[in-house]
């Protein structure tokens, strides 16, 4: 490989290389410090934090331009703007969370975070089709398995088992959606089969189900709650928020391309169904967050509510394919839930409990945690009003149903109330647990990084840094359909009309297919071989 080729490969695969290097770094640090010494785990954690930050900086420097596009034979790795932005912010977020979590397994959690963000970057860098979705689903399973390891906890093992079942069920849905998508272009020229609109509805349903189940939209929220109950926070955030959000970007890209390729409205009740599921999820997550007394569960329900926004965004992508609002809300949502996760891990580490009955006065005792939660509330409310709030309102307008919009607004307000309730508990008289807890001076590295990290992430989530605009860029375009099968298949059904070579998006042949069949580059509809 030439020097230029090597540099390109490093740019394209930087997060993956950083994750792989952690496999050598952590054992080396442990060897250097000696496994018996207490500070070996601390040094390993510090090393992984540095690696997370280096990944973040490296992804920002490598960027998503043509210089980072790697081509090896038939394989193309074309890093996308959203992928690189997620790595940039993910590196910072997880470095802070790993620091706040401390403990013997913090280094391992940092390694898991490295692999998680590498999988997200890679999946958003490969052309859409089955590969990126499969990669994300299996990465989610692998991460939950790795995060749950370490102790024989039945609850954790059952959460992973649930994940295994879910992932195995979603792959057939993706393949069926893929088959239906390819059939659309043929349906346009052969009236004896289903119409393009109904096939597009089937495709949209298959792809949306993947998002709805993976993200934990009502009534599939149980998996997300179990994940937040059982797994460590790094694993919970990756499996429950970050990977589903990356999946949402792919799904929205597919849905936009799909909706652009047909002129008729989608058949069935796909859009109203997704809208209803989104609004119900928001309300359900917010009310549950208000009614529960365990901060772990409350953060889990906040993640559920966030998945409601993802469902609303998916519906908006179908309604208005060219509008970028749907992709604009993904990043702020995941950053906000990560902030709550950061606050959760910090409070749990300091007070050793997650019950709010035992956490009275926590904010007066540890003001840094108070700052972190305030930052999370600001991010949740997207204050001061700007691009993020405008995007959310735009989504509700695109939905076109005032009742759904009203429910979503009520859900979001209740969510903010649930978060404020947590903050207010911090200013009540100190409980015995809080009073007896050991605290450390404000001026130390972990506390300072907690405060600085919270403020930075809140600024990004609330739209102050205008980082979110980078997350709406296009994903790599869909490849053409794979070569013919190895067994030279015979036609199982005689096509009544021989498809033309220029079948895709041909206005003369298919009046129902719009001339600009593939506007965003992703999910292009190609004829079967």
């Amino acid at each position, binding site marked *: 490989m030439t020097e230029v080729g090597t540099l390109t490969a490093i740019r394209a695969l930087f997060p993956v290389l950083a994750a792989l290097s952690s496999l050598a770094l952590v054992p080396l640090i442990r060897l250097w410090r000696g496994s018996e010494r207490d500070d070996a785990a601390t040094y390993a954690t510090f090393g992984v934090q540095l690696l997370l930050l280096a990944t973040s900086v490296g992804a920002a420097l490598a960027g998503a331009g043509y210089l980072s596009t790697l081509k090896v034979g038939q394989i193309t790795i074309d890093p996308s703007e959203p992928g690189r932005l997620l790595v940039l912010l993910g590196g910072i977020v997880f470095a802070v969370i790993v620091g706040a979590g401390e403990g013997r397994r913090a280094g391992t959690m940092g390694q898991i975070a490295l692999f998680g963000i590498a999988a997200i970057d890679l999946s958003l860098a490969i052309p859409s089709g089955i590969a990126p979705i499969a990669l994300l689903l299996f990465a989610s399973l692998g991460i939950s398995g790795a995060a749950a390891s370490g102790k024989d906890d039945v609850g954790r093992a059952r959460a992973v088992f649930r994940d295994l079942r879910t992932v195995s069920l979603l792959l057939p849905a993706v393949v069926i959606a893929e088959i239906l998508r390819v059939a659309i272009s043929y349906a346009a020229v052969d009236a004896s089969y289903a119409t393009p609109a109904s096939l597009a509805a089937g495709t949209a349903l298959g792809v949306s189900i993947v998002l709805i189940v993976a993200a934990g939209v009502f009534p599939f929220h149980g998996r997300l709650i179990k994940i937040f109950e059982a797994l460590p926070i790094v694993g919970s955030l990756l499996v429950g928020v970050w990977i589903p959000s990356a999946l949402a970007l792919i799904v929205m890209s597919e849905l936009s391309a799909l909706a652009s390729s047909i002129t008729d409205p989608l058949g069935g009740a796909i859009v109203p169904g997704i809208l209803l599921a989104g609004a119900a999820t928001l309300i359900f997550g917010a009310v549950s967050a208000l009614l529960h007394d365990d901060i772990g569960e409350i953060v889990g329900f906040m993640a559920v509510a966030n998945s409601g926004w993802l469902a609303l965004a998916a519906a908006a992508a179908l309604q208005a394919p060219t509008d970028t609002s749907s992709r604009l809300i993904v990043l702020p949502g995941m950053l906000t839930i990560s902030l709550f996760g950061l606050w959760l891990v910090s409070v749990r580490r300091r007070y050793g409990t997650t019950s709010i009955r035992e956490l009275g006065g926590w904010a007066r005792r540890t003001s840094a945690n108070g700052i972190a939660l305030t930052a999370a509330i600001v991010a949740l409310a997207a204050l001061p009003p700007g691009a993020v709030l405008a995007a959310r309102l735009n989504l509700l307008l695109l939905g076109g149903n005032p009742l759904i919009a009203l429910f979503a607004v009520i859900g979001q307000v209740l969510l903010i109330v649930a978060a404020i309730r947590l903050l207010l508990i911090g200013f009540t008289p100190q409980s015995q647990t809080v009073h007896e807890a050991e605290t450390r001076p404000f001026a130390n590295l972990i506390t300072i990084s907690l405060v600085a990290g919270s403020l930075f992430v809140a600024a990004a989530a609330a739209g102050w840094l205008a980082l979110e605009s980078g997350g709406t860029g296009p994903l790599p375009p869909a490849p053409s359909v794979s070569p013919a099968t190895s*067994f030279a298949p015979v036609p199982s059904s005689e096509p009544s009309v021989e498809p033309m070579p220029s079948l895709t998006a041909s206005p003369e042949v298919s009046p129902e297919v719009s001339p600009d069949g593939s506007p965003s580059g992703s999910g292009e509809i190609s004829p*079967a071989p």
Partner: protein
Amino acid sequence: MPSLELPLVLIAILAGTLAVTSAGRGAWVAIAILALSSSALEFSISDPNRIGLILRLSAIGIGLAAALPENLFERDALRRDLALGTLVRTLREHPVVVASAVAGLLLGLVPLALPIESSSDALRAAGIALLVVGLPPLLTSRFIEATTRAAVVTLSGTLLLRTSIFGALDPLGAIAIAAGFTCILVVGGSVATRISNAEEER
């Protein structure tokens, strides 16, 4: 190669059925045979670029090595569990699964009700039969090892169905799916071990 297609399809369906109906050794051996036969169907053996096939077989091999229970290869027990009589008895004890496999096979032979130009009948039949056999235990089983095996059967069926229409996976897809097979087997094995350890402690 087409001459091998039908025997491989039948072997894959039989192995898939045994993988979800047998317990212990018989099921794991059936999974290994299913992996071999479905990979051979999916990726052309005569294709000079065999990277997909090699990846798939290595991935499943690694996954099986991690997931296989201890004492699997005890010669006497293996001979007893894999005896023809035992296998036939297992199939006779699960008539619904066998009927599902046959129904899936017949259903798969019917042309798709979709305007897709070409599709291999045999691969499609194998894919649908494996999906029909694998999905029910994947949805309902409370046993981790059985669910893991059902996941492998379902995924194999899904990929055969996909191959019948689109052909073999592209290299990136092949890598992702190979990693997925390993992931399912390794995670399934580790979860099963952890739960049995925790229950023993209790």
